[in-house]
């Protein structure tokens, strides 16, 4: 009977260790992992995730292994139990000093990665693209030769006659040459400034390869800036629950060489 | 009084002794309620501040007459607090009649406050203010915040009057004692206290 009792503890220990090892393997072998980063600021974020993974991973493994070990060792003992030498003080000190310093260091380094994206102003001469999200599609707007966007008039929005932004080309000179597209293309290695605004509810702009996720807030126009470093075609998906079509709301980001980009933009302009 | 009071009210007269915390549970309960209610009002006022900071244009509808009306309401509510204190004091000295008299006066003042408040409301309705519209063309949030915050406060006042009526009835019938009146008094003072924030933020900050 007593043997059976301790057996339970040994099984528990084994299960916990197995779980820990499998989890560790999945992370170390990158069974599920981030796609290759294509942005200028991305490496900072990747490093931050790696560093955090080291800190967190060590704590995870240590915690589970110690738990397993104690359960394995001290199952169903008989005699007088004893307390850990030193009592709680070393534990508290460990938590405050080791963990505390770790997390503060993390936050110090991490804030630089964050600041690189959100504190730094967009570089001068960035290509400014206006992005509008609506149920359940993205639309993109290039300022055209005059470099200025036409004013928005929500009451003019009309899916029927393709006026997705509610611009007024007939009366508004700025809006005349605006180029509205359903996909976004950007030149490689050129700083890009997006202004995100929503037509109806909250949406989000998530490009895994760019390491950028930013919600659209109805009523606000939020800036996001990045520089793509690799040509290719990447998915933009909506990560903010926006209604029944949420799962299907996506667009594509094409990173093109400057020449290809210019051709593409011409084609789009011709289609307006 | 307090000792026996507690030994009885903790439900188990024989086995329970005076509260280790030393504060009658009804009073403590009311205080805890006040804490959470204060946070509720606080959140409402923060929403109002948020709306106001974010609004490009904010109508300020209150002429001096409305401010005077507000001042009068404040006076009424404050004096009702004092009469409430008088009721508590009388009940503690076991002068039932005067206690009931003061409770009656408090309820009367509370009702007067409510009437004045509604008069203010209907005055605003008359000018075309609604929960969702602003006749001066400014932010529609003024009506929304003003009517919701003062409405919440008015609900507290009315509830307070009704509660006082019940307490008075119980007190006359001898089912309730001074501790119930004191607890009701705490609530009444809290309603007064909230008004001390609602009046400057909702009226004075919106004076023409």
């Amino acid at each position: 009977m007593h043997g059976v009792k301790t057996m339970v503890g040994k099984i528990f220990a084994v299960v916990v260790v197995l779980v820990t090892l499998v989890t560790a393997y999945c992370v170390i072998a990158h069974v599920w992992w981030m796609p290759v980063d294509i942005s200028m600021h991305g490496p900072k974020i990747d490093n931050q995730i790696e560093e955090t993974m080291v800190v967190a991973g060590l704590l995870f493994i240590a915690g589970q292994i110690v738990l397993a070990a104690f359960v394995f060792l001290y199952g169903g003992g008989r005699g007088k139990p004893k307390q850990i030498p030193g009592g709680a003080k070393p534990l508290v000190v460990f938590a405050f000093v080791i963990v505390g310093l770790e997390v503060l260091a993390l936050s110090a380094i991490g804030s630089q990665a964050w600041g690189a994206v959100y504190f730094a102003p967009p570089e001068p001469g960035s290509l400014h693209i206006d992005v509008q999200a609506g149920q359940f599609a993205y639309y993109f707007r290039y300022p055209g030769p005059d470099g200025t966007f036409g004013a928005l008039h929500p009451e003019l929005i009309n899916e029927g006659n393709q006026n997705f932004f509610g611009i007024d080309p007939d009366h508004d000179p700025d809006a005349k040459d605006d180029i509205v597209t359903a996909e976004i293309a950007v030149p490689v290695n050129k700083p890009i400034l997006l202004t995100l605004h929503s037509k109806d509810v909250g949406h989000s702009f998530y490009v895994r390869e760019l390491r950028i996720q930013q919600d659209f807030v109805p009523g606000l126009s939020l800036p996001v800036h990045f520089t793509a470093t690799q040509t290719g075609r990447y998915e933009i998906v909506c990560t903010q629950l926006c209604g029944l079509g949420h799962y299907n709301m996506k667009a594509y980001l094409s990173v093109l060489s400057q020449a290809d980009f210019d051709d593409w933009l011409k084609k789009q302009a011709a289609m307006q | 009084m307090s000792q026996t009071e507690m030994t009885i009210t903790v439900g188990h007269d024989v086995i329970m002794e005076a509260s280790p915390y030393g504060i009658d549970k009804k009073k403590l309960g009311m205080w805890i309620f006040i804490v959470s209610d204060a946070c509720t009002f606080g959140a409402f006022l923060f929403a109002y501040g948020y709306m106001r900071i974010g609004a490009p244009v904010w109508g300020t509808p209150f002429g001096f007459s409305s401010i005077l009306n507000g001042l009068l309401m404040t006076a009424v509510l404050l004096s009702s607090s004092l009469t409430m204190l008088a009721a508590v004091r009388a009940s503690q000295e076991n002068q039932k009649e005067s206690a009931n008299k003061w409770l009656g006066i408090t309820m009367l003042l509370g009702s007067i406050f409510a009437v004045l408040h509604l008069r203010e409301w209907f005055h605003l309705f008359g000018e075309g203010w609604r929960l969702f519209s602003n006749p001066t063309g400014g932010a529609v949030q003024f009506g929304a915040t003003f009517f919701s915050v003062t409405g919440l406060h008015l609900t507290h006042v009315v509830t307070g009057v009704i509660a006082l009526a019940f307490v008075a009835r119980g007190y006359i019938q001898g089912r309730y004692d001074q501790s119930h009146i004191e607890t009701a008094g705490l609530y009444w003072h809290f309603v007064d206290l909230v008004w001390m924030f609602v009046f400057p933020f909702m009226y004075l900050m919106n004076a023409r």
Partner: protein
Amino acid sequence: MAQTSAHAVAHHAPPQGFIRKYVFSVDHKVIGIQYLTLSLVSAFVGMALSWAMRLHLAYPDFHIPLLGWLAPNGAPNGVMTPEYYLSLMTMHGTIMAFFVLTAAPFAGFGNFMLPIQVGAADMAFPRLNMSSFWVTFVGFLLAASTFFIPDGPPLSGWTAYAPLSAVGPVAGPGQGWGQTLWVLSIACFCIASLLGALNFIVTTLDLRTKGLTMSRLPLSTWGWFIDAWVSLLAFAVLLPCGLLLALDRLGGTSFFIPAGLVFNDQLQPHSGGSPLLFQHLFWFFGHPEVYIIILPAFGIVSHILPTFIRKPLVGGWRVITFSEIAVGMLSFVVWGHHMFVSGMSPYMAMVFSVPTLLITIPSVIAVLIWVFSLYGANIRFDTPLLYSLGFISLFISGGIGGFFLAQPSTDSYLHATSFVVGHFHFTMGLSAIFATFAGFYYWYPKMFGRMMNETLGKLHFWLSFVLVYCVFMTLQLTGFAGAVRRYSAFVDDFMIPLIPAQKFMTVCALLLGATQFIFLFNAIWSRFKGTRASDNPWGATTLEWDTTSPPPFDNFGGRQLIVHHGPMEYDGEDSVMQTSPAASVAGT
């Protein structure tokens, strides 16, 4: 006086008649069991919803006849539509977070055990207590009723972000009456929780029996007491949030709705509101909420561990309690980490990030206390202890995710991926559920006077423990690949490779759910056929074990209790009851 004297009488003469005794009872024990029953029902409803969702995710055209009958529009002949998936997801979140995780460990066990553990005859305000249960019940009915109205439950998630939740039917099916009923249900739950918290605080402060100083409180009582404070303050802010949302929906106001919103080419008549304000008010409650859910679990586990390891926790009551208090306080200053990518000011992101990271310190202390208390112990592997150990392991696994989500830089990649879903299922979902199971197996003898079947209990534990890891660790790790949450189908190119993992999770989730029926059977069977429980079957020391199982109507049969010791007087085979005048054996 009427109320109180009425109770005094009531205590001496238990009420007769079914209604007064079991339905509208003021007895905290009955109310506690009512709460537990309600959350048990809700748990199986919520689980059924997750089953339907998992099935739909892995096998999109799987026929679920019952759904077809329940929602002819939502699931025509049993195949779920995307919007109905979102409705089920919303209700799964709402029912689980509010009516299971908040109700069971806090209101359920708290109501039953707290007055007994402090040596009181009942809660401080028994009628308030009864009303808070029935208001909760009304809230539950309102939430459940959304399934049976034409346009079905809301689809805006349990967070109900405005303006999706505020503009009304134009935002999609379920955003009409469904969302309104949802808001009312939440408002009811707020009021009930506020009354309950008030009752818990006053009971703990005012009704403690002779000699039961705060330093001698059982650790579960500490958990509930701290938790009561957190919910008192947090729900006080959710209430206005819900009221303002209701005003936007019913009163035509624009608190959360900005100008120029266009649905189906129709300009909405609102202007000047801010969706961010809703998120702030919601998460000001929403983050403390996850600690409202986990703090009772902390308390229950800290209460159960010493009983089965036969020694006090390292650092006595102080260290664990102060870490719980620290967690409770910090939980109010970290809500912004739910909003790093929400368009909130990026500088505020830093302001919220630091306390979020610092909250790991008290959490780590708590975990270290539990783990290192096992050192040199005489562990008895009864089911309650197994569940407590499972809780510790799960809490470690989930807590680790916090490091990533507490930093805006890493969160900006992982936010709204299944990493988050896995993280909060581990920390607030499964940890709290495991602690609840621990408490259930532990207190069942006291509540019903019979032991639960040990073999079935162990079987239930092993299956649950392994399958939980299979489901949620996979869910958490797939987040690194950017698997986006709240998707009812995987049409994105990068999601398609994850479908095998999704199938695996679905199969495990179905098994995990099936496992819970072992528990249900055990609970019902043991109620009638279980072996009779002695007054103190676990050799525990706190007051609830110092009376009969189940306790008499006034809990102690009119005995005068005097407490001499702290709650953790264990030393191997010997232990000293809190009420026993004998000398201390553990020196606490």
